């Protein structure tokens, strides 16, 4: 028994890698459709957009990048599809150079299905370097920062931008980002203007974002792939979030089992060595 426990305790990392690989891969090949139970913060995020009247305008700022796309892109798609199905117009902006292709991808991919018009229902603003300085500018001098869209077309002639000279002219703000974006948005947009704000973040960032949700500064949070799956479930449109949740669930379960096994073996080995010492 002791020998087995020792072997378990010193298990080769590669065996763990194989177990994890299989636990993620198998549900992707053959989905098991585990139950989904949307969290309060996901439901609040969904409800905030769902209650917007057709024609109202949402400002969505993102820093989705290839490294975070697995979690953030399904959120972006879910929010976009929901907004378009409700007739809510979306103004997209980004703070990272890797984001524009994701934005053009999501806007182009769903145009036929929801029959929206670029410039009337949706617009993509160009990438601006500067990180937090850009968000400060959005909060204080929106019109001065953007006068053209990402293709170089003037915003002045676009129907979606009519009457928007200030960030306060939009009805809702959505921030979908991996690290610092939510902080910049709360500092320079939400706090000064009081605009209802939703945050989409990677799961690991949720602990940092939740205090702003508890305080009422964020009206909802879409957390990681699970948040995207919740959103898709609430909107009734399964997508990448839902299909990835089985793999994530099983992967997490294997992780929990590994942690439990590690603790059991460590405990038994310690007890064994104590007994031998006595």
């Amino acid at each position, binding site marked *: 028994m002791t020998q087995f426990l020792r072997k378990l305790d010193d298990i080769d990392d590669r065996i763990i890698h194989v177990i994890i690989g299989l636990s993620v891969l198998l549900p992707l090949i053959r989905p098991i459709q585990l139950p989904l139970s949307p969290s309060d913060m996901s439901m609040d995020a969904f409800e905030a957009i769902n209650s917007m009247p057709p024609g109202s305008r949402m400002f969505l700022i993102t820093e989705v990048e290839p490294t975070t796309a697995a979690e953030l892109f399904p959120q972006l798609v879910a929010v976009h599809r929901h907004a378009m199905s409700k007739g809510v117009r979306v103004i997209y902006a980004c703070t990272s150079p890797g984001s524009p292709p994701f934005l053009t991808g999501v806007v182009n991919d769903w145009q036929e299905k929801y029959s929206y018009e670029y410039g009337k229902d949706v617009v993509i603003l160009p990438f601006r370097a500067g990180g937090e300085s850009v968000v400060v500018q959005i909060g204080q001098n929106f019109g001065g920062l953007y006068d053209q869209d990402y293709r170089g077309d003037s915003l002045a002639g676009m129907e979606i931008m009519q009457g928007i000279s200030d960030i306060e002219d939009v009805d809702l703000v959505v921030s979908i980002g991996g690290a610092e974006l939510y902080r910049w948005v709360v500092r320079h947009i939400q706090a000064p203007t009081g605009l209802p704000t939703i945050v989409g973040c990677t799961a690991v960032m949720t602990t940092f974002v939740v205090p702003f949700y508890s305080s009422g500064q964020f009206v909802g949070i879409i957390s990681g792939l699970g948040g995207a799956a919740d959103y898709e479930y609430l909107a009734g449109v399964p997508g990448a979030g839902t299909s990835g*949740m089985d793999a994530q*669930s099983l992967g997490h379960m294997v992780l929990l089992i590994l942690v439990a096994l590690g603790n059991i073996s460590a405990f038994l080995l310690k007890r064994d060595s104590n007994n031998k010492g006595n």
Partner: protein
Amino acid sequence: MKTELPVLVAFIVGTIIVVSYFLNIPTLQVTAEALINWAVILSGFALGLGVINLLQVHSKNIAMKSSKWGLSVWLILVMVVTFVIGITQGTQSPVYSFMFNNVYTALGATVFALHAFFLPAAAFKAFRITSLESGIFLLAGVLVMLGQIGIGTAIWDQFPAIKSWIMNVPNSSAMRGITITAALGLASTGLRIILGLDRTYLGSAE
């Protein structure tokens, strides 16, 4: 002069930005807006500077045949090819989109996905209960994880409620404390920079 001028600029700019936040003086507001605008423009230049810096560092690697200089050749080649395609054909062109979707995105996602392998291996060896504190830490982690995943809900439908409580009550309380402390630290650092007491941004340790 090399030190005094940047400190003076930091003092003037910092003071204008801080005061304009608290006082609604039109001239000050306009000046502050212009300064923030400059920051955005300077960030654009910083990107260009980054490219030049990368070229310098890696050209030196190649010239001196440092270890793994082949990777420097590859980096410069990819950077130049991407730049040329982006400039000549546009970032919406099929070639650029193909490179973005099938090279950059795929590589980025792959590197990120490696966490899924390294994290459980590390967790297996590191997440051990050695004290009461580590026990509480592990228990909280397990409960949050079970509340987050479908299997947890299938086992017991109260796991999501427990997860929400942990996130909203103990987590929020602790994070607020950390956030407020960090903000105070940030404010004091800002004040030190404005007053010229902290000059580390000039590259000195004073």
